């Protein structure tokens, strides 16, 4: 017994030494030996970039071509930010991170944690990349914290089979994937509500995951905006937005649900409990659900149709831009390797693979001569989704205080949901949180 105990203890100590050495030795080792550099990449679930199988294949190809080994960690939207924040505080931030400018530029970049990669953009790149995406990646003229890869427009979705049964498809322009008007949206929801006798949609408000959906819903409904055009102030306290919140509150078929998050809403939509989903984009449209009934189907096999958010006039869709940024870990060799990585996946003949993996649209039509405009030619759903891309609205996620604003947003939705629904109560809740977002 004693011997066993001693052995176990000894083993523990050995393990301890080894484990400690992992972190202590790692950076030094690289400085001394120019041998194969290892870098780390953390990705959010951006289409296939959140699936280990897909990413492993890409990384294997990258290692074969460049000799750089990439260790990948997968984050989720529910706790990914917390993880990166603790890692930064713990001096263990990854070399590369894949997400959008709202985090890379407006948050971590603004806090001085990212490497300026403006030198990666040459004049051709600047011409090729979609101007909106390019602008979002630059903090100022000479400072870029992100190299964009793909973009999309976030949208909503309906259970087409149920809508047809409820005779609600007449309110939808199927060719352009838009609602004919806000009134038609309300009529359609009412028709489905009458048909099923159950709640149709939910304004989910636990946490910030998927909040682009609730933001776009509220902003479009009465023509409000989330920030001013200069991106200096949050304007979701405007009358239009309050009116929109009131409309949603008063709609008997749509509930403010402080018990579910964006991911729960999608699960409920897949299983047929809800018949509209506000947290949707092309990646969900392409991914089969867990019941494996196929892409663009619910668990029971109903058809899913993606739609722009209801608006009078052209809807302004919330854009999603994703790319890579480099955390400043003070190691020149690793930063160099990370830049090689970005060049390889975002601006080379290999970019097509990276874009395809993401299931989104490339931010450019050509990269170093390679044609990217036709990579989705054989994919009907993607081709169809293209109709939404012109509706892309202002990319306001780079406004100062974005992290605070996001947190304030879902807290505000909860407060509205818990209020008595009077205009005064709603505007009181909105005012309180919009002031918090604006740092007042």
């Amino acid at each position: 017994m004693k011997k066993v105990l001693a052995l176990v203890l000894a083993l523990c100590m050995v393990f301890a030494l080894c484990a400690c050495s992992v972190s202590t030795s790692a950076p030094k080792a690289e400085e001394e030996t120019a041998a194969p550099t290892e870098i780390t990449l953390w990705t959010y679930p951006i289409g296939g970039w959140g699936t280990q199988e897909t990413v492993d294949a890409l990384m294997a190809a990258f290692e074969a071509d460049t000799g750089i080994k990439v260790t990948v960690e997968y984050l989720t939207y529910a706790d990914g930010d917390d993880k990166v924040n603790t890692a930064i505080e713990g001096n263990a931030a990854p070399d590369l991170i894949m997400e959008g400018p709202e985090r890379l530029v407006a948050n971590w970049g603004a806090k001085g944690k990212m490497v300026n990669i403006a030198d990666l953009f040459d004049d051709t790149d600047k011409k090729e990349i979609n101007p909106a995406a390019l602008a979002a990646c630059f903090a100022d003229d000479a400072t870029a914290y992100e190299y964009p890869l793909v973009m999309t427009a976030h949208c909503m979705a309906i259970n087409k089979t149920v809508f047809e049964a409820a005779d609600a498809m007449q309110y939808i322009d199927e060719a352009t994937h838009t609602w004919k008007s806000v009134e038609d949206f309300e009529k359609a929801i009412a028709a489905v509500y009458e048909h099923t006798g159950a709640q149709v949609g939910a304004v989910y408000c636990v946490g910030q995951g998927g909040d682009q959906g609730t933001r776009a819903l509220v902003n479009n409904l009465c023509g409000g905006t989330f920030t001013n055009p200069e991106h200096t102030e949050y304007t979701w306290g405007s009358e239009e937005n309050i009116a929109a919140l009131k409309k949603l509150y008063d709609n008997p078929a749509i509930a403010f649900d402080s018990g579910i998050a964006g991911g729960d809403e999608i699960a409920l939509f897949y299983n047929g409990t809800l018949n509209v989903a506000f947290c949707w984009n092309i990646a969900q449209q392409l991914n089969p659900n867990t019941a494996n009934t196929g892409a663009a189907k619910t668990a029971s096999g109903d058809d899913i149709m993606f739609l722009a958010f209801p608006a009078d006039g052209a809807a302004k869709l919330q854009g999603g831009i994703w790319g890579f940024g480099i955390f400043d870990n003070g190691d020149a060799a690793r930063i160099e390797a990370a830049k090689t990585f970005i060049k390889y996946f975002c601006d080379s003949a290999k970019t097509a693979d990276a874009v395809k993996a993401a299931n989104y649209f490339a931010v450019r039509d050509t990269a170093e001569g390679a044609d990217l405009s036709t990579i989705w030619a054989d994919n009907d759903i993607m081709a169809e989704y293209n109709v939404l891309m012109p509706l892309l609205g202002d990319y306001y996620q780079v406004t100062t205080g974005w992290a605070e604003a996001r947190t304030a947003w879902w807290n505000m939705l909860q407060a509205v949901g818990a209020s008595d629904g009077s205009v005064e109560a709603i505007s009181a809740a909105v005012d309180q949180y919009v002031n918090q977002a604006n740092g007042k």
Partner: protein
Amino acid sequence: MNTNRLDANAKKKKAYSIFSAVVVIILAILFTFPLYWIITGSFKTGAEINSTVPVWFPSEWDMGNYQRLMTKRTAPLFDMNIPLISVSAFGYTLNLGGLTITGPTVPAAIRWLINTVFMSVGSMLITCLTAAMAGYVLAKKRFWGKTIIFSLVVCAMALPKQVILIPLLREMSALNLYDTIWAVIFPIVGWPFGVFLLKQFAEGIPTEMVEACRIDGAGEWRTFTDVMFPMIKPGVGACAIFTFINSWNDYFMQLIMLTSNKNLTISLGIATMQGESSTDYGLLMAGAALASVPIIIVFLIFQKYFTKGITMGAVKG
């Protein structure tokens, strides 16, 4: 008349004991239900999970959830990094190359389970050893600074760990321990409950016995290992059980300190799965079953020791 009253009393007593037995049984069913729901849920298909009418028992035992759990993420079974050793002398530098040993790739859930066991057992062993040594001298020795140390121990015991999370995180990163299992183990070991407990136990051992051993010429260390340790063994057992359960359940420290997929514990792993783009209760239940069933089996096997340990901890603590 007197017997009548006694009779009535006995009847009442009997009725009450039947009533209480029934209530306890109902409560017991309610208490086991979540576990039952985890285990059956992990075998249900998506449709059964999401059905508004609960499926009390899976119609067929579907392994899909476990399949997804096992294929979703992979991680090396173990990995060790032997640091680069470089020796410099007389202007020459000898590099004994750094070496990383990586185990075969397995489903990440397996690695998480291994990490969890390693963390719990590791903190348990180290805590027992350090706490027994410290408890012994705090109980049996007179030395300068004893009162200060002991009052610090008592004060720290009531402090919730979460309070110190921010400084602790900064410290771990300065020590290069962030995102290693040790960052979770060390604060548990530093937690003074074990010391307090074992000090109480050691106080119950007659001082004469310790002194007799010293007079026989045994060294301090021998006295500790041969006399003291065997006598406070029950206390060490209680300390072991407390530390084990605490570290197994210590979600908070793990959440703050661990980030890499390969370093997660099973609780943290399941919690992470919750945040996937669409909530999948089947997958979550499979993870929960994997996290809880092993420890429940351990608990049932060592049930007697658990109860004994808990009671003893309380009597002395």
